[in-house]
């Protein structure tokens, strides 16, 4: 089983094909940004991108994603910050922060598809991510701020911008 994660190929042949991607990321690869919240695709804490689509990694068996491209929060901008992450800091969104990697992955995917989403589009895209601490007001504000930043920039340009700010270069946005 070969899976590409954040632009790097990983051979997970020794792992149980039933193992959800979430636990492979966390326990086998040390990528712990995706969180375990429910294990049944209810909360979104485990959200990563599969070929640029946000998915719940707790419900994604390794055997089903061989050869696919996975992006996790660690790969969104590396040590640099994606405009969504910047907006998250600017709006001081997090309380406990446990849900926020998942929220950011859903928000960044939304803005990639639709850089200028309506409130309804934001609500639709974010409904699968629970924030138990109730930071929803700030999540909406941060998405709108990031959206403003992204206006007029192609996603290629955003990727370039992020890459430029990144010390170790190379980022898959």
């Amino acid at each position, binding site marked *: 089983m070969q899976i590409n994660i954040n632009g790097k190929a*990983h*051979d*997970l*042949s020794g*792992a*149980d094909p039933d193992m*959800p991607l979430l*636990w*492979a990321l*966390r*326990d*086998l*690869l*040390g*990528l*712990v*940004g*995706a*969180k*375990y*919240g*429910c*294990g*049944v695709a*209810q*909360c979104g*804490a485990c959200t990563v991108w599969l070929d640029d689509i946000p998915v719940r990694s707790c419900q994604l068996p390794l055997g089903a994603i061989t050869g696919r491209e996975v992006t*996790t*929060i*660690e790969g969104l901008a590396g040590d640099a*910050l994606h405009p969504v*992450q910047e907006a*998250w*800091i*600017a709006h*001081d*969104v*997090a*309380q*406990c*922060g*446990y*849900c926020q*990697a998942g929220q*950011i992955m859903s928000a960044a995917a939304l803005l990639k598809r639709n850089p200028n989403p309506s409130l309804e589009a*934001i*609500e*639709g895209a*974010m*409904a699968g991510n*629970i*924030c*138990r*601490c*109730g*930071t*929803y*007001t*700030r*999540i909406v504000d941060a998405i709108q701020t990031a959206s403003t930043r992204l206006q007029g920039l192609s996603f290629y340009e955003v990727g370039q911008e992020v890459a430029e700010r990144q010390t170790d270069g190379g980022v898959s946005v």
Partner: protein
Amino acid sequence: MSAGASPGIKRRDFLRYSSFGLALSSGGITVLAAAKTAAPANSLNPYVMIHDDGRIVIAAPNPDVGQGVNTALPMIVAEELDADWQDVEVILAPIDASRYGAQFAGGSLSVRNRWDELRQMGAAAREMLLRSAAQQWGVPRVELTTQPSKVLHTPSGRTASFAELVAAATEQPVPADGEVVLKARADYRLLGQRVVNAAAADIVRGRPIFGIDVSVPDMVYATYVKCPQVGGVPKTANLDEVKALPGILDAFIIAGNAGPPSFDLRKSIHVAGGVAIVASNTWVAIKARRSLQVDWDTSAASTDDSRAIEATALSAAGRPTGERDVKRLGDPDSAFAKSSSIVSGVYATDFVSHAQLEPQSCVAHATSTEVEVWTSSQTPGFAQSTLAKLFELPAEAIAVHQIRGGGGFGRRLSNEYVREAAVISKHMGKPVKLQWMREDDMAFDFYRSPAYFGLQAALSETGELTGWRNHVVSVSSDGEEANYGAGYRGYNFPDDVVPNVHISQTMVASKTPTGAWRAPISNVYAFAEQSFLHELAEAAGKDHRDFLMAALGADKWFKPDDLASLNTVRARKAIAAVTQAAGWGRAIPKGRGLGLGFFFSHAGHVAEVAEVSVNADRQVTVHEVWVAADLGQIVNLSGAENQFQGSIVDGVSALADQRISIRSGAIEQTNFHQYPLLRLPQSPKINVEFLASDYPPSGAGEPALPPVAPAICNAVFNACGERIRSLPISRAGFKVV
């Protein structure tokens, strides 16, 4: 298989663990390089250390489970130190009562309890820097002052950074409490401002800062299966079959204690009996649970049925007085006899689970002589003392490391999962990460106790509130004392304000473990009392705001100088501010309503107005909520506002459709599909106003929650004419959309 990088925390770093704690920023949790025993160089006191390169390290003493104290508490130190916040690096303090006192997260007490201490610590460190500059420059101390992160000699214009001065400053004697002058509020540069959470940069990057992210060398992974019927213990299990599964390292029975656990945080060393499955990774352990079969002994287990508990409680609450008297003020019987009208209402709330988003986990390494644990406990000090008792070791043999938690709300006050992890580790002879599944978290909580209220009020001819009866029906595991959060609230309004009062209580038996859930006791009382006061205003034909203002009685601070006692002046100001902000009295379209709620808890006077609409399908939209609060001075405006926004979402979430039901001692809900949390599209617009009076600051984590339910239920009444007397509102067929 690629080995990959091992997550953040390295055990060898912890063994070199400094006396100063864990760094929060850049690269997740790292450990300052310093010997275990020696005080780090350049430290001025347990809270302040200044690096030669200018970084100012401030220790955050109390656990942060999302309430923001890892930012707010260091801000208080930084203010008095006169540190530039840009230079500040926050670290998590070690758990050490000798230097940091009581380190816990509960009761919205972190800021309130540490306000004086932390200002003094910051000011004392600043004074040491000033004195060391005076000595070096040969100038009088009085000619010196500070600007952010530097000392200034005004007459000569000479300056030196804190970093340049710190080495010599450590030689200065520590100033005593009376020797330093604290800043006047008008001189604050930092307090009251919006400051971004100290962990924000790590959070948005997904760095390993949570309990679930802890990883130490040689660690193995465990899951722990307990009896669904709370308090049951294993007799036998198909252990050999489980052990034969690939990747399983061991499976064994822990006899543990029979019977439900206790919420006695200080004393309980209860470990529920169960079956531990230990594996090479979390998934292998989880998967093996499917093959596990256990024969349980349920002779000492709970047999609770929540429907029966409720039926008994409601029939008791229907009587005006209960088994025992709790309080009598004035002459309630004649007040009721003389009244022009009597209004009654029975209010009920249900069992509720915490559902913090990070399920319990703990990394533990227990040997016969030492126990070391990494935990997001809200009471790490009790984790230490109860582990010492359980393992019969001296307190010094127990090392507890505080780690950020993904939500608390009271769930992490108890430490039973810490003890489970340690017991499993000792059996394995290795460090173990115990991971609870969401299903474990929901089945083995210390739930919010339900409470039931038989309320009666006497109104005079002119509609004044002259008598108040509250028959409180409480769940009790021993039939004597009410369970935590179910008892009599014991303070102030309306009980101590109305002239004639009779409070009585009746116990209903329940073995289901209950504990503290955000704003315990207050959250159930607020719903019942503040809804009932609206009923009274309606019965008296008065505007709710005017009725509430009058019911608060004379201007009075019940125990002057005790922030935890009601001050009716502050209360009225909050009500006046929120009703003004919400446009109280404006014309509202049909099907919409405004509702008001006020509550005093956790030293906070908080008033809220909700605007809702209700349609023919009983769908409730919560459009907007206004909140005005007097919490005294505000430490971190962004943090306090975030706590308030979150409390309102939490309040709506709980009242909408959260209830735990119990059959034959087992919890019926297993995960979020049966126990829904509010989602973004249901979340209202929220307006927060802090009155920012001159009183010392009180905590922001809890006091905004209690008024939410009454404000919304009163708004629903105003929108559709239907009174809600039972939570969650889904029980009456309402649905929050």
